[in-house]
C-alpha cells in the first residue's frame, strides 16, 4: 500500500519544491478578513472539482468500469441550476435549483448504471453515449447561450469562504464520507470484489448489479456537485466549455494514484494525491511563466512517467527493486 503511493507522492513533492524554487512565497499562508490565502490554498481550491469527480471515478474504476460522461453531467448540473435561478437572488431558489440539478444528475447516473449493469454494455461505450448527448442536452437547457446569474447564496458554493474556500471543504467532506463508507464498512470490499470478477461475486452472494448502479449514481452526483462549483465560481453556466475534458483529468488522477483501470482495487488517498498532482502541475506551469497551452505537454510527460514507474513490466525491466509481478 505504502509502496504504491511512494512514487506519486514523490512526484507531488518534487512539483511543490519546484514551485518553491520559482516562487519562494509559494508555501506562505496569510489570513485576511478571516479568509485563508496562499499558493497551497489556490491549488486545493482549483483542484476541488477534479478531486470530487476523481473520487466518483475511483469507485467506478474499482468495479472495472469507467465513466466518460462526468464532464457532460457537470455541464448539465450547472446549466439546470443557472436556468432555474434565472434572475432571482433568493437563497431558497438557489438551493432548490441545486437540489433539482443533483436529483437530475442522480437520474443520469441511474441511466449509466442501467446501460452497464442492466444491458451489460461495455462501460466505455455506455458512458460515451451520455458524453456525446449530454453536452447537447446541456445546450438544450441553456438554449445555446451562456446563462449568467447574480445570486449570493449560489456564489458561495464555488467562491465562498469559511476560513478555507467552501469548495475545498465540500470536496474534503465528500472524501471523508467516501473513505468512511467504503473503508469502515464492507462496501469497499464488495466494490473491489465486483471489480475482480462480477460473475463470481454475484455467485458468492454480492449484489453485483446494485453495486454497479450505486457507483455510477455516486459518480454522477459527484460530477453534479463539481459542476455546481465550476459554474458557481464564475456565476454562469457555459454548456460548451464547463467541465470540458475534466473526465480525462479525473481518470488521470485516479490512474496516477495507483488505481488500476483493470479494476479490483482502489486507493482514495492515491486519488487525492493524483488530483493534487494534476492541479499542482497546472499551477506550476502558470507560475514558471510557460504559455498555459503548453501545460498539455507537461501533463503528457508526467502521466507517462508516473504510469511507467508503476507498471510492473517497466519496474522489472528497470529493476527498481525485485518485485514479483502481482497476479
Amino acid at each position: 500500500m505504502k509502496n504504491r503511493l511512494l512514487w506519486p507522492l514523490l512526484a507531488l513533492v518534487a512539483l511543490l519544491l519546484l514551485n518553491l524554487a520559482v516562487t519562494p512565497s509559494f508555501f506562505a499562508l496569510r489570513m485576511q478578513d478571516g479568509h485563508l490565502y496562499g499558493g497551497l490554498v489556490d491549488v486545493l481550491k482549483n483542484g476541488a472539482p477534479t478531486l470530487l469527480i476523481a473520487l466518483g471515478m475511483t469507485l467506478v474504476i474499482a468495479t472495472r468500469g469507467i465513466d466518460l460522461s462526468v464532464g457532460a453531467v457537470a455541464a448539465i448540473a450547472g446549466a439546470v441550476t443557472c436556468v432555474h435561478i434565472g434572475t432571482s437572488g433568493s437563497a431558497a431558489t438557489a438551493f432548490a435549483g441545486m437540489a433539482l440539478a443533483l436529483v437530475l444528475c442522480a437520474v443520469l447516473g441511474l441511466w449509466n448504471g442501467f446501460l452497464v449493469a442492466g444491458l451489460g454494455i461495455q462501460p466505455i461505450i455506455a458512458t460515451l453515449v451520455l458524453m456525446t448527448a449530454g453536452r447537447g442536452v446541456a445546450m438544450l437547457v441553456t438554449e445555446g447561450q451562456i446563462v449568467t446569474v447574480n445570486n449570493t447564496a449560489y456564489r458561495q458554493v464555488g467562491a465562498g469562504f469559511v476560513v478555507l474556500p467552501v469548495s475545498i471543504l465540500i470536496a474534503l467532506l465528500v472524501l471523508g464520507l467516501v473513505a468512511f463508507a467504503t473503508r469502515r464498512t464492507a462496501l469497499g470490499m464488495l466494490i473491489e470484489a465486483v471489480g475482480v470478477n462480477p460473475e463470481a461475486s454475484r455467485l458468492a452472494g454480492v449484489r453485483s448489479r446494485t453495486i454497479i448502479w450505486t457507483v455510477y449514481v455516486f459518480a454522477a452526483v459527484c460530477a453534479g456537485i463539481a459542476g455546481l462549483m465550476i459554474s458557481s465560481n464564475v456565476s454562469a453556466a457555459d454548456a460548451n466549455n464547463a467541465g470540458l475534458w475534466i473526465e480525462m483529468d479525473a481518470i488521470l488522477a485516479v490512474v496516477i494514484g495507483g488505481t488500476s483501470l483493470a479494476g479490483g482495487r482502489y486507493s482514495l488517498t492515491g486519488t487525492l494525491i493524483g488530483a493534487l498532482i494534476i492541479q499542482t502541475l497546472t499551477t506550476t506551469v502558470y507560475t514558471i511563466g510557460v504559455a498555459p497551452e503548453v501545460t498539455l505537454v507537461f501533463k503528457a510527460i508526467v502521466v507517462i512517467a508516473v504510469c511507467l514507474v508503476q507498471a510492473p513490466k517497466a519496474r522489472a525491466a528497470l529493476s527498481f527493486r525485485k518485485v514479483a509481478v502481482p497476479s
Partner: protein
Amino acid sequence: MTTLTQRVPSRFLPVLATVVLFVLAFGFGSVRYDGFASGQVIANLFIDNAFLIVLAAGMTFVILSGGIDLSVGSVVALSTMVTASGLQAGWPVPLVILAVLLTGSTLGLLMGLVIHKFDIQPFIVTLAGMFLARGLCFLISVESVSIKDRTFRDVATTAIELPGGVTITYNVVIALLVVAAAMYVLHRTRFGRTVYAVGGNESSALLMGLPTTRVKVGVYVISGLCSSLAGLLFSLYMLSGYGLHAVGMELDAIAAVVIGGTLLAGGVGYVLGGLAGVLVLGTIQTLISFQGTLSSWWTKIVIGVLLLVFIAVQRTMVRR
C-alpha cells in the same frame, strides 16, 4: 427474415443495418426537402467528411485489435500545424507531406511500443498522446497559421468533374483510396488476419504462433499514419493550421466506427462499416442544416441516441 439471414451471413448484418439506416435517413431527407436528393449533396457528404473517413479507417484497425486510440483528433491538429508552419517556412510540398506522415506514424509507433512493452492500458497511453500532440501544436504556434502556398491551394480548390455535373475534390479520391487500401490490408494480407485474431482472443493468437507484437504495435502506427493523412486532408479543407482544430474529432471517429457495426471488444467489424458510419453522421448534419430551425446541438443528441440504438442492437445480436 430467415431468407435474409440465409442469403447474407449474419456477420454482415450490422454493416447492412448501417447502410439501410443511411438510405432511410437520406430517403427521408429527399422526401422532406427540395434539392436534397441531388448527386451533389451526396458528393458533399464525401467532401465534408473525407478526413473523418480516413480517421475511421485507421480507428477500425485499432478497435478491431481490441484497443482504442484517443489521440487521433490531436494528431490531426498537429498535422495541420506542421503543414501550415512548414509551408510558411518555405519547405517544398513533398517534404512537408513526408514530415507530416512521419510525425503521425512516429507518434503512433511510440504509443504502440509503450502500450505493448510496458503493458499499460491503451486508453491511458493514447490519452497522454492526445495531450502531447495538442501541446506540441501550441509549442509550434499558439495562433492559427493560414496556408498560402500556391500548389497546396490549387490542389485544395481543384474540382474533379464527374458525369452528371457532380464535382468532388482530390480529398475524396484520397479518402476512398485509403479505404480501399485498408480493406486490402485487412482482408488480403497476413497482417489483417492477425489483427482479427488478436482482437478475437489475444492469448489464442499468441499460442497459434501469430506475430501479435507486430500487430499490436502496428495498428497504432497505422492509426497514427491515417490520422496524419487525415490531418493533411483537413489542412486542405480548412487551408490553415491551428492547435484547436479537430477538438473532439476522436469521438466522432469512434462513434462512426461503432455505428458502422464494429465491436469495441475487438475482433468483429469492417472498414466499410466505418465509411457507412461516417456517411450516417454526415447525413444527420446535412438533415439538420436543411431543416434550418433545429439548432446544431441536436446533432450531438441524435448521434448519442444513434450510438445507443446501435450498441443495444449489437448487444442483442451478440447474445443470440
